[in-house]
């Protein structure tokens, strides 16, 4: 018998390389028109539905503001009772907070230096709180912790130029510096004195099948003694004035007897952005786009089982784990690319529409792709779609039938979010943590909050995304294990 002629390819002997496998799977994906159209449809749906959502959303937050504009243009609330006198140039204020009523865990009693009594103007304050110790705060966003002690406590603020330093002490003799803040552009003349604030208590109420979150106003009283204001430059003797700054929910008051001030105040000094997340609204179409992604991801593997082509695939590549890995990479990368185009386009196109509908500064500062959270939301949405594609692939590899895999993935992604809207908040939060539906949280540019009832606002973006990734990983791992054990 003559031996067969050995086939000598013009190309050097190709190794059994993973790169070739990726190329093979990419050829499979791009050569079925339906799948390509499915991916494109996902992008189109994402963009179109996002634009529809943007067009259908409106707000009157700027017309009926429940906020004032802070020093850096952000919406804030600035309500408290202020006992103050003018200060020109450098100086300091010292006081001992003797008692503080625990009207709310973040109620504040302390000393403050403020540009003026206009609500929203720049300030620096050092205060004690019933549950969170001493805090040095400034311009609504800076919050430096001091000691964890509570009343009685000595507090001091010292101004030098535009720089303000806060100190605390247990006895009025040994002072500890808490921190220094810089108030750009602080004028010579400022107001300085004592203040009391008391934020509203968050109430969660369930009625008629839905939960609502509200705020019950609180009011607290604190007593101050050993109050002293010192000025570097001699000035005219001043008298204390007191008033409610901003729109305090309850009228505050202050009385003085023998050097002891009793001050009652209510209200909150904090950022107060309206809860709507314009970035999430503009990426919202991904809810619909993902349906096409699930279908393509599942079909990418189940179609091979249906027609028996899986045998050809495994005969060409007996190392089945690598086939699964190659498929996952190809579908994941392709979906990510499509997703990026979709999410960037949707974001850019939706912003002007949203601005026209009232989502404009100052209530809603313009989001820009150069900001971390916005970039996280936009890129995160593309990543979210890519992980869904891989999750679908894993489900398809496990179940081997398209009907079951598609239904299971869609159910796990959408149902928990829908059901969560009728359940109490704690149950809703739990659902977001244990099901892949939590992945929608990656679309938010704002932080999770207790004040909203939409389920995807309850968990952090990386937490939610992590849950989705865990589901995808476990499904793939199970599929990997079963693939090698089962007959083709």
């Amino acid at each position: 018998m003559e031996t067969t002629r050995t086939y000598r390819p013009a190309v050097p002997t190709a190794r059994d390389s993973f790169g070739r496998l990726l190329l093979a799977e990419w050829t499979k994906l791009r050569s079925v028109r339906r799948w390509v159209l499915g991916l494109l449809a996902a992008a189109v749906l994402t963009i179109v539905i996002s634009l529809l959502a943007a067009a259908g959303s409106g707000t009157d937050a700027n017309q009926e503001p429940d906020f004032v504009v802070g020093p850096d243009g952000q919406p804030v609330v600035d309500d408290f009772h202020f006992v103050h006198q003018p200060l020109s140039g450098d100086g300091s204020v010292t006081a001992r907070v003797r008692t503080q009523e625990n009207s709310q865990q973040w109620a504040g009693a302390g000393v403050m230096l403020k540009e003026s009594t206009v609500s929203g103007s720049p300030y620096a304050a050092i205060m004690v709180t019933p549950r969170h110790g001493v805090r040095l705060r400034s311009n609504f966003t800076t919050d430096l912790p001091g000691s964890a002690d509570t009343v009685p406590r000595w507090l001091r603020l010292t101004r030098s130029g535009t720089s303000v330093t806060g100190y605390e002490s247990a006895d009025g003799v040994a002072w500890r510096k808490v921190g220094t803040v810089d108030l750009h552009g602080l004028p010579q003349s400022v107001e300085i004195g004592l203040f009391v604030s008391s934020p509203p208590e968050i109430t969660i109420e369930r009625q008629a099948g839905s939960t609502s979150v509200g705020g019950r106003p609180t009011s607290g009283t604190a007593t101050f003694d050993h109050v002293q204001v010192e000025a570097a430059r001699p000035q005219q003797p001043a008298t204390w004035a007191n008033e409610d700054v901003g729109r305090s929910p309850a009228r505050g008051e202050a009385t003085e007897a023998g050097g002891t001030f009793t001050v009652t105040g209510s209200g909150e000094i904090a950022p107060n952005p309206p809860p709507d997340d314009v970035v999430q609204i503009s990426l919202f179409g991904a809810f619909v786009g993902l349906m096409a992604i699930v279908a393509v991801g599942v079909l990418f593997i189940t179609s091979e089982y249906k027609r028996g082509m899986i045998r050809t695939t495994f005969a060409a590549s007996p190392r089945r784990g690598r086939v699964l890995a190659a498929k996952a990479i190809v579908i994941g990368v392709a979906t990510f690319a499509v997703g990026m185009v979709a999410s960037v386009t949707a974001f850019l196109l939706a912003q002007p529409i949203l601005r026209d509908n009232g989502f404009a500064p100052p209530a809603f500062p313009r989001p820009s792709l150069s900001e971390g959270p916005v970039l996280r939301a936009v890129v995160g949405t593309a990543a979210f779609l890519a992980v869904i594609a891989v999750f679908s692939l894993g489900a398809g590899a496990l179940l081997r039938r398209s009907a079951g895999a598609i239904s299971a993935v869609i159910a796990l992604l959408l149902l928990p979010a829908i059901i969560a809207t009728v359940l109490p908040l704690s149950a809703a939060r739990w659902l977001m943590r244990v099901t892949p539906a939590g992945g929608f949280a990656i679309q938010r540019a704002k932080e999770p909050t207790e004040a909203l009832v939409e389920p995807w606002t309850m968990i952090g973006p990386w937490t939610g995304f992590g849950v989705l990734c865990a589901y995808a990983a476990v499904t793939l791992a199970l599929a990997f294990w079963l693939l090698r054990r089962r007959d083709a």
Partner: protein
Amino acid sequence: MDATIETRNLRKCYGRTVAVDDLSFTVTPGQVTAFVGPNGAGKSTTMRMILGLDAPDEGTALVGGQPYQRLRTPLRAVGALLDAAAVHPGRRARDHLRWMAHAGGLPRRRVEEVLELVGLASVAGRRAGGFSQGMRQRLGIAGALLGDPPVLLFDEPVNGLDPEGIRWIRGLLRSLAAEGRAVLVSSHLMSELEGGADQLLVIGRGRLIADTSVRDLLAAASEDRVLLRTARRSEAMTLLANAGATVAATDREALTVSGLPAERIVALLSERGLPFSEVAPHRASLEEAYMELTRDAVEFHTSTGRET
């Protein structure tokens, strides 16, 4: 690589059904080996075990002395056509071969070469869903030949083909074997393999019934049988039966006589003066020989209303 397929004591059960039982054989290069047996005999299962797709419960299957899983570039070593319908209908024929080439580490130009070889070059850009049965088989064969492998497995390649297609495949298999490759073809129809196979592996109910060359099988089945054509059938039948032969009527004018040598038959007939037009050694057809062999192994007999 040594172009052989070897199985040793292969066994596979699906639940309580024993699909393959203690199967051992060797397929050698240079000839077409036909794997034949009734439907459900275990042929496809065996082929899948050789390709490492199904895991045997016991025993081993080796290609070129190695299990399939250990081959570095399997498509260069073994080419297989298991199911011609295993193509996505929405995919173009060329793309189907292309992904196989990529997965198998083969150069792209092989795709065009095999398309030429099987005669599908003109329809390579068409989607496989629009292919006829014959074109699909050709596509499957093209895929098997992509790596120009020394070992080839074809599972029922002529299923559903027209006579011209069957002839083409037979010729192709022969030429592939003549190049020195090992070719294993499975079939459940003997007539298609007539003239196409050299070695037979006959399998029934999962067991190997015969491992023989076609020539030997035919010879064994044809022994002692003589074809007799005569117009005076009944008289000839009685005469020969009385002489101790077993006589069967084959059709209107022909008789098959076994148990007497041809000269003796001629002598007997001449004695009586019975005319006859033909006395010839009966060449059993492969189909007859095979039916003999597998009569007990057919699991799903049909029943005819009457014996014709």
